[in-house]
């Protein structure tokens, strides 16, 4: 994650070479479009209770759950796998916590207990994925697809098919509170992302994951324990999705069993790809995944702000993402370079011919 830069100019150069640089450019462009439509779009004011208020703050708040699942997805993708179950783990986490809190007193203690319960349940779901992938040897796509389908069903069973609501101030504070003027959700998401980044890069976990993602056979011969690593990674992905589920439900203190986390696994995969991690596995970039998640949140807000009709929203999103992927593709960039070079040569040749 660290660039070996010696000055601001070189740091900038290193940043430009990173794949997620185009993600940052895209975020800036989207904000610019919004700014053109409303010159006051980027304004951030101080609200009544001393908190920052504004569109940008809303974007950060909306990005929080996506950041968490994108970071988890990033690690799973590094091993050459994929986790389709994150959206369903989110709704299970939401259902478990709301169901628990609706019958518990409104104290900080029960808020924390609900959080603990979420960790246990989402880790268990991640462990099921891990066992299916590493011990049973099923393909990650199939294993996590099973949990994706089963998870939403499980959430409905937990809440009896209802959209359960609850009240708990501590829990609510997680989603709606502010620290230092910034939303707690965003700070927590960032904190967890940084913690995961440190975990994988300061330990040898990152190296091991890349090794099994790039070349499972060679990694095995080097004595790398693929099974244990896969198990660990799917559990981490599950727990992060559990937290994302808490973030998504706590803001309204209601779990919507059919919509909470719905199709968010796709957003997570997109965020990872935008961040420069190849779905083929191997080298991964957590910072990139965070940038990708923020881009997706920005895109969602922009679509609403521009008043794109809700039926055209998916198409609009798709266009932006396809363009971004094209810009990142080495092949497309090479084609552009060649065209430019060819264009530069043609006048010379014409001059020679004349």
């Amino acid at each position, binding site marked *: 994650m660290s660039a070996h830069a010696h000055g601001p100019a070189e740091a900038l150069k290193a940043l430009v070479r990173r794949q997620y640089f185009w993600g940052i450019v895209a975020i800036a462009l989207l904000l610019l479009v919004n700014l053109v439509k409303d010159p006051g779009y980027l304004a951030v004011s101080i609200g009544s209770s001393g908190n920052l208020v504004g569109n940008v703050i809303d974007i950060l708040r909306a990005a929080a759950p996506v950041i968490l699942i994108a970071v988890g997805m990033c690690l799973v993708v590094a091993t050459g796998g994929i986790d389709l179950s994150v959206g369903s783990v989110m709704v299970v986490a939401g259902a478990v916590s709301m169901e628990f809190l609706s019958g518990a007193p409104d104290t900080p203690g029960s808020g924390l207990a609900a959080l603990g319960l979420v960790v246990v349940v989402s880790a268990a779901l991640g462990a099921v994925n891990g066992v299916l992938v590493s011990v049973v040897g099923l393909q990650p796509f199939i294993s996590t697809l099973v949990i994706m389908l089963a998870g939403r069903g499980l959430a409905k069973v937990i809440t009896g098919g209802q959209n359960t609501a609850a009240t708990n101030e501590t829990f609510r504070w997680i989603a709606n509170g502010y620290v230092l003027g910034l939303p707690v959700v965003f700070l927590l998401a960032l904190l967890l992302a940084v913690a995961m980044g440190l975990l994988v890069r300061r330990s040898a976990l990152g190296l091991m994951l890349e090794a099994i993602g790039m070349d499972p*056979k060679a990694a095995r011969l080097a004595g790398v324990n693929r099974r244990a690593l896969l198990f660990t990674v799917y559990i981490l992905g599950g727990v992060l999705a559990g937290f994302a589920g808490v973030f998504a439900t706590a803001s309204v203190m209601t779990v919507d069993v059919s919509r909470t986390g719905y199709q968010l696994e796709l957003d997570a995969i997109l965020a990872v790809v935008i961040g420069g991690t190849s779905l083929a596995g191997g080298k991964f970039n957590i910072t990139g995944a965070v940038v990708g998640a923020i881009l997706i949140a920005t895109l969602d807000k922009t679509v609403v702000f521009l008043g794109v009709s809700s039926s055209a929203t998916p198409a609009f999103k798709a266009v932006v993402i396809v363009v971004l992927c094209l810009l990142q593709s080495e092949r497309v960039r090479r084609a552009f370079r060649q065209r430019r070079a060819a264009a530069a040569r043609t006048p010379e040749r014409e001059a020679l011919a004349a």
Partner: protein
Amino acid sequence: MNDIQPVVEMTGITVEFSGVRVLDDVDLALYPGEVHALMGENGAGKSTLIGALTGTLPILEGEVRIEGEERMPIGVARSRAEGIATVFQETHLSPHLTVAENVMIGNEVRGAFGIDWKANRARAAEVLALLGLNDLDPRMPLSALTPAVKQLVAVARALVVEPRVLVLDEPTSSLDASEVRTLLRVVRGLRDRGVAILFVSHFIEQVFEVADRMTVLREGRLVGEYLAAELDRSDLISKMLGEDIEALKALRSERLAHHYSASGKPTLRASALGRRGTLDPTDIELSRGEVVGFAGLHGSGRTELARLMGGAERADSGEIWVDGVRVQLRSPGAALHQRIALSTEDLRGEGIIAGLTARENIVLALQAMRGWSRPLSRGEQGALIETYLEALHLSPSDIDRPVEELSGGTQQKILLARLLATRPHVLILDEPTRGVDIGAKLDIQRRVAQLAGEGVAVVFISSQLEEVVRLSDRIVVLKDREKIGELSNGPGVTVDTIVEMIAADLDGDLDGEPEE
């Protein structure tokens, strides 16, 4: 025989892969009614030459004549149209299709309403009958057949087009003795009907059983073309293995001077170690400070024995003791914990990890032994890298580059460094010098000699027998999946000693299974 015009005449064939010459100025002539064996060790260029003939690989220089007419460039379609057919290994058939579908695929008989399945089954049955498979129901799914019958189905697929030239690439590798006999009978039958046959097999006895003529390749070059009747086994083997450059001979005398005879308790002892289909039960002992060479041709069991000892493959018979304690080697990781390190012959597939840097590749095995939660500190990593930079003459500028950008020799050194970092007591090196330039070869071999001096038990495997003779204190000779003997190395032992030992061993039958 030579006044007959060849069906296929390839001259001066040169093939390059991304700038590397894998085939250099090779000739091959195939005559009708003759079985022609293409011989050479791994990497000699046999598959490349077949690829050039069947049009799957582009030819850079040289020409292909068929019935005297130039046919360039020879692509897949043209090669097939000229009647050159390839028998694939049975593992390349489709297990879920029926026998008839497997035979006829690509050559289906079509009627007015698309594929005429009845006609296809009839045609398939006709071809299968030629191979003596009159009773085989073409509607059976392929997966219900034994490997031998599947292999014959693969032959049938090639025969549907009534080829003039039939290429058989390792057709017997999954067959047992009686199945091999059946297949060879079929091959002879086809020859007698005037088909030109190109036969590739690493089982020497089978080749002598069936071939009329042989072409030997070594390291991408032509060694020569011989009549099988005029060549004996030891000639053939020494032509395939070749000799090494003078510069390495000094190491040989050095090693002989320090010749070491093992005494005391063995570091590693295996008894009746084997795995069905790859290695017959074998006994072996390794002691501190000795270099044990495994000599034999590719497919003789040398690699298979190494893989069982290094935990890469699970043995289904036998026991292993390390320092007198019985151990289970369930994985390469388990072997590393017993201080047994293995580098396999497949450097790019099972050795280095191409996308990681040299530094990451070197620390990987040691880090895996310690577990991910106890990372090597920067200082420890630095010290480790420092040691191997010097010991193996690596360039410091390569250390933080992805190894895919480095040369084959450097990659081998990096793999060696990775294993040495785990401080092994037993080091098993399978082809550590293949595809490596002479300088790197010398570095690696010197290091092996030095390690033995430090008390490591080293297993050294190479298809360059010169290397094995140069470095080993003791040589274990293998042939056709079993150990046929051991030699204590000394001034009297030369490459010829080993070659004669392999050639003289005739008791093994065609596929190497011991006869009861």
